[in-house]
């Protein structure tokens, strides 16, 4: 063969191979499955490229060995023996021709198999004269999914060209496998989809753009029935029984989710109530819809998914029903109404269920009718008033034992022995009763369920019972508490009416107020006058109004309690004395909610007090006047001294003038002295006047040492005339007291006069009075007046303070009684004691004003 010929031959060969490749590619593409594609490949390669035998090897399932595939091709029948040997052979990776190709993932060429050291089938090959062999891997991705091998009888050197062609053909097989896999995948996906649609709990309906149903899954058929003969969308609501949530208005067809999704809308969570032949009790569905679109976005139809939400809705309605009952309780609806609503709510939750609520009587021994709207009146009447006990039907026993009592058959249960006939008449067979307990665990009543079948409660019925007893417990307990509250109010009101006590509540935020009837009487308000805080305040006497308001505001801000004694001024000028006492109620944040309190009318008591005080003042005044009488010597002396000086000075001036010998500087001096003495006389008179005045002035801060010094001077003349001596021993650090000057003077004068009287029988040298002050830790200022007289009655020294008790012949017996009332009105005490040797000592203690000490030299 020359070069030209060789080139021509090569060219021709290439052309043939290309043509082969095209042919096989088309044939493989047309093949239905892998086997037929493989068969095409094996046959065509043998026919067109001069091989006599072609067969395939496939990895075992566990991937450890290659097995001979079922598809093969051979040019003539003599090769069957080799085929048989191949079928019996299994190659591990690297072993033999298939194993080598499998392991290396590369084609392999053997020029003479009879001389190849790694060819276990040598004997069989030699027997039928097979020489050249080629192995080609078929790869899917990186994985060898098969190895194909071809044999020929001639010994032929490796042709790379030929290997390439066969490999290219083999690669076509991979396409088939991929396509096949995709088809299988699709098929499987379809199956899954079908399975989902068939088994899903939601209904799925597909319709085309004209509203023609394309698909109803089984659930859709269960919900709505079969699509049946085609209907137009505007008949759907009627045909399938579709309603708005009000359960009565047919669903507008143009608003149906499927209609809308066919129009191209996306529809979410539309609730539809369905009542049809299929669903006679009705069911609730929540629907989502989506339009179906073609590849170019054109509308093809719509699909809806409907979920059964009946249970959710019923639970919702049940909860709403519970809320309604709780609202009734909160609004203080009558208990029978509340319990009846509760029973009806429970009965609505299960078919054929009847319920009743019985109350435990206050005596704790009998039942009272509560609510049983669907039980026969005969039964209700028979049970009302029945006793509770260990064998008293379901309810009486449940209340008695405080435990649920389940009677599955009233016809046989011993608990029902007394009620069996009644139950029979009323058609009751099972009765399960649960006690209703208060928060503290007290039995309030019972809740019972009745069935016409003999059976025990289902879990759902047990759940309903728990809810019912809980709500009933709240309702009954609240009613009990309100009863107790009403009774308490009535009792308090009764007490208040008989005690001149006003009850009131102020709501400062709203400026409104409430007041009991008695209160309105005390404050002078008409029964039906709407009250405000301001109105109540306006009744307070104008002189005290600001102070009362300030005290109230301060108390509310600080302690939360309030007390005030003040006057009220009523219409027509009437005045009342009241004591007002209140407490401020605040919320968690400390805001004032209301002030609740009482007002006590103390006018009568006050009147008596005022009268008593008046009498006391009168008495004290008489006492002072009488003291004045005893002090005439002192007063006369006190007045006569300045008058004498004035008269003398005036006479002196006249005489100087008459004699014409006056010193020019002397006359003004005389006149000046007269003025000073006139003033001094005036002071004496003022002092006397203040002592005999009826009203005594208000409290001031007093230094008792000064008061004692002044008083002793005032009586000095009388003391002298009685040939007695008063000495004082005054504590310089004596604290001040808050007191009325005249009253303290009155106390001292009484004590001094008494002391003088007590010493009348003594020789003048022994008539001594010692007035001493001292301070007890700065808390108390103490005055003691000691004499050396006859002393106090030994058996009862305190008797001297009693009214009309006197040891003196001329005494009224009022002095010391008045002294004591004055001291006590100042918050102090007075005691009398007999001194160790002789005479009496009166000790007055007055509360000191803290931090008020004044140093005064002792007189």
């Amino acid at each position, binding site marked *: 063969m020359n070069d030209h010929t060789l080139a021509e031959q090569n060219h021709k060969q290439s052309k043939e191979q290309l043509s082969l490749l095209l042919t096989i590619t088309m044939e493989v593409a047309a093949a239905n499955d892998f086997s037929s594609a493989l068969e095409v490949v094996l046959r065509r390669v043998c026919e067109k490229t001069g091989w006599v035998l072609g067969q395939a090897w496939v990895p075992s399932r566990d991937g450890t060995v290659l097995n001979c595939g079922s598809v093969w091709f051979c040019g003539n029948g003599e090769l069957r023996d080799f085929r048989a040997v191949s079928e019996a052979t299994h190659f591990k990776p690297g072993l033999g021709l298939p194993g080598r190709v499998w392991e290396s993932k590369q084609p392999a060429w053997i020029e003479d198999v009879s001389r190849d050291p790694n060819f276990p089938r040598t004997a069989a090959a030699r027997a039928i004269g097979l020489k050249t062999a080629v192995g080609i891997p078929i790869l899917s991705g990186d994985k060898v999914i098969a190895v194909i091998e071809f044999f020929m009888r001639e010994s032929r050197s490796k042709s790379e060209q030929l290997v390439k062609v066969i490999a290219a053909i083999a690669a076509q097989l991979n396409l088939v496998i991929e396509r096949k896999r995709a088809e299988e995948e699709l098929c499987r996906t379809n199956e899954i989809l079908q399975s989902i649609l068939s088994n899903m709990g939601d209904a799925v309906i597909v319709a085309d753009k004209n509203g023609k149903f394309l698909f109803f899954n089984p659930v859709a058929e269960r919900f709505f029935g079969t699509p049946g003969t085609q209907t137009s969308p505007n008949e759907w609501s009627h045909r399938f029984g579709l309603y708005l949530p009000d359960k009565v208005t047919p669903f507008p067809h143009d608003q149906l989710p499927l209609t809308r999704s066919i129009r191209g809308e996306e529809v979410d969570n539309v609730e539809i109530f369905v009542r049809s032949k299929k669903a006679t009790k009705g069911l609730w569905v929540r629907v989502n819809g989506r339009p179906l679109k073609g590849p170019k976005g054109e509308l093809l139809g719509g699909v809806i998914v409907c979920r059964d939400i009946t249970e959710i809705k019923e639970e919702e309605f049940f909860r709403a029903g519970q809320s309604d009952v709780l609202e009734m309780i909160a609004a203080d609806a009558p208990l029978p109404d509340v319990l009846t609503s509760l029973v009806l709510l429970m009965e609505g939750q299960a078919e054929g269920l009847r319920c009743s609520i019985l109350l435990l009587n206050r005596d704790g021994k009998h039942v009272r009718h509560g609510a049983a709207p669907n039980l026969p009146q005969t039964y209700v009447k028979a049970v009302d008033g029945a006793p509770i006990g260990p064998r008293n039907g379901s309810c009486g026993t449940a209340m008695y034992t405080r435990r649920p009592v389940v009677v599955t058959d009233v016809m046989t249960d011993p608990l029902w022995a007394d009620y069996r006939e009644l139950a029979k008449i009323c058609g009751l067979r099972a009765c399960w009763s649960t006690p209703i307990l208060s928060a503290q665990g007290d039995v309030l009543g019972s809740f019972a369920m009745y069935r016409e079948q003999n059976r025990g409660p289902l879990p759902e019925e047990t759940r309903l019972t728990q809810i019912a007893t809980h709500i009933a417990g709240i309702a009954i307990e609240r009613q009990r508490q309100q009863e107790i509250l009403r009774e308490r109010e009535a009792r308090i009101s009764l007490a208040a009416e008989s005690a001149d006590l006003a009850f009131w509540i102020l709501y400062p935020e709203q400026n409104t107020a409430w007041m009991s009837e008695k209160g309105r009487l005390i404050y002078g308000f008409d029964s039906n006058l709407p009250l405000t805080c301001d109105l109540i305040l306006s009744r307070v006497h104008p002189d005290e109004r600001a102070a009362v308001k300030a005290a109230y505001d301060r108390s509310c801000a600080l302690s939360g309690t309030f007390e005030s004694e003040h006057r009220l001024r009523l219409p027509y000028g009437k005045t009342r004395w009241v004591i007002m006492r209140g407490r401020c109620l605040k919320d968690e944040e400390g805001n004032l909610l209301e002030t609740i309190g009482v007002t006590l009318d103390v006018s009568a008591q006050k009147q008596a007090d005022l009268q008593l005080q008046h009498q006391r003042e009168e008495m004290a005044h008489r006492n002072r006047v009488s003291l004045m009488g005893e002090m005439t*010597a002192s007063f*006369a*002396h006190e007045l006569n*001294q300045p008058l004498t000086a004035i*008269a003398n000075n005036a006479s*002196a001036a*006249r005489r100087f003038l008459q004699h014409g*010998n006056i010193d020019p500087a002397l006359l003004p001096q005389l006149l000046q002295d007269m003025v000073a003495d006139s003033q*001094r006389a005036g002071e004496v008179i003022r002092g006397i006047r203040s002592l005999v005045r009826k009203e005594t002035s208000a409290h001031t801060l007093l230094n008792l040492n000064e008061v004692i010094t002044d008083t002793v001077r005032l009586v000095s003349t009388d003391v002298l*005339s009685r040939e007695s001596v008063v000495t004082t021993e005054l504590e310089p650090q004596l604290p001040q007291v808050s007191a009325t000057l005249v009253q303290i003077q009155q106390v001292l004068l009484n004590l001094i006069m008494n002391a003088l009287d007590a010493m009348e029988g003594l020789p003048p040298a022994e008539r001594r009075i010692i007035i001493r002050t001292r301070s007890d830790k700065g808390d108390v200022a103490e005055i003691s007046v000691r004499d050396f007289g006859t002393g106090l009655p030994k058996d009862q020294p305190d008797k001297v303070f009693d009214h009309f008790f006197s040891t003196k012949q001329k005494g009224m017996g009022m002095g010391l009684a008045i002294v004591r009332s004055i001291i006590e009105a100042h918050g102090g005490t007075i005691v009398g004691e007999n001194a160790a040797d002789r005479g009496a000592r009166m000790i007055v203690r007055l509360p000191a004003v803290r931090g008020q000490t004044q140093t005064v030299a002792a007189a």
Partner: protein
Amino acid sequence: MSDPNQAGDNEVCVVDDDPSVLKSIHYLLASDGFKVRTFNKAEDFLTHASAHHVPVVVTDIWMDQVTGLEVLARLCALSPKTRVIVITAREDLAARATAMAIGPVAFFMKPFDDEKFIGAVRDALSRSEK
């Protein structure tokens, strides 16, 4: 005041514990030209009387510390010739009787008539033994 040693014979002593009364009597007597010696305390006067001749004394009989009657009694012992004029702010018959028994030449209730008082002092002074 006058020199006690030279003017002692016609000097009038006045005893009163009330300063303004004492001062006014001093002026009253001075207006008629008497020489006057005043004492705020009875003790001071008695001390004076023990060392000096006192022809006339005007004294209150109610004073702190010592009663006028006491003064009278002690003066009587000390200087029996001294003529005593008593002035008092209080009408006390018992005291008056006691005083008169001791021996005053005149007795005046405060306030008193100036003419009679000065007349009494003048009279007492003129009768006093020189």
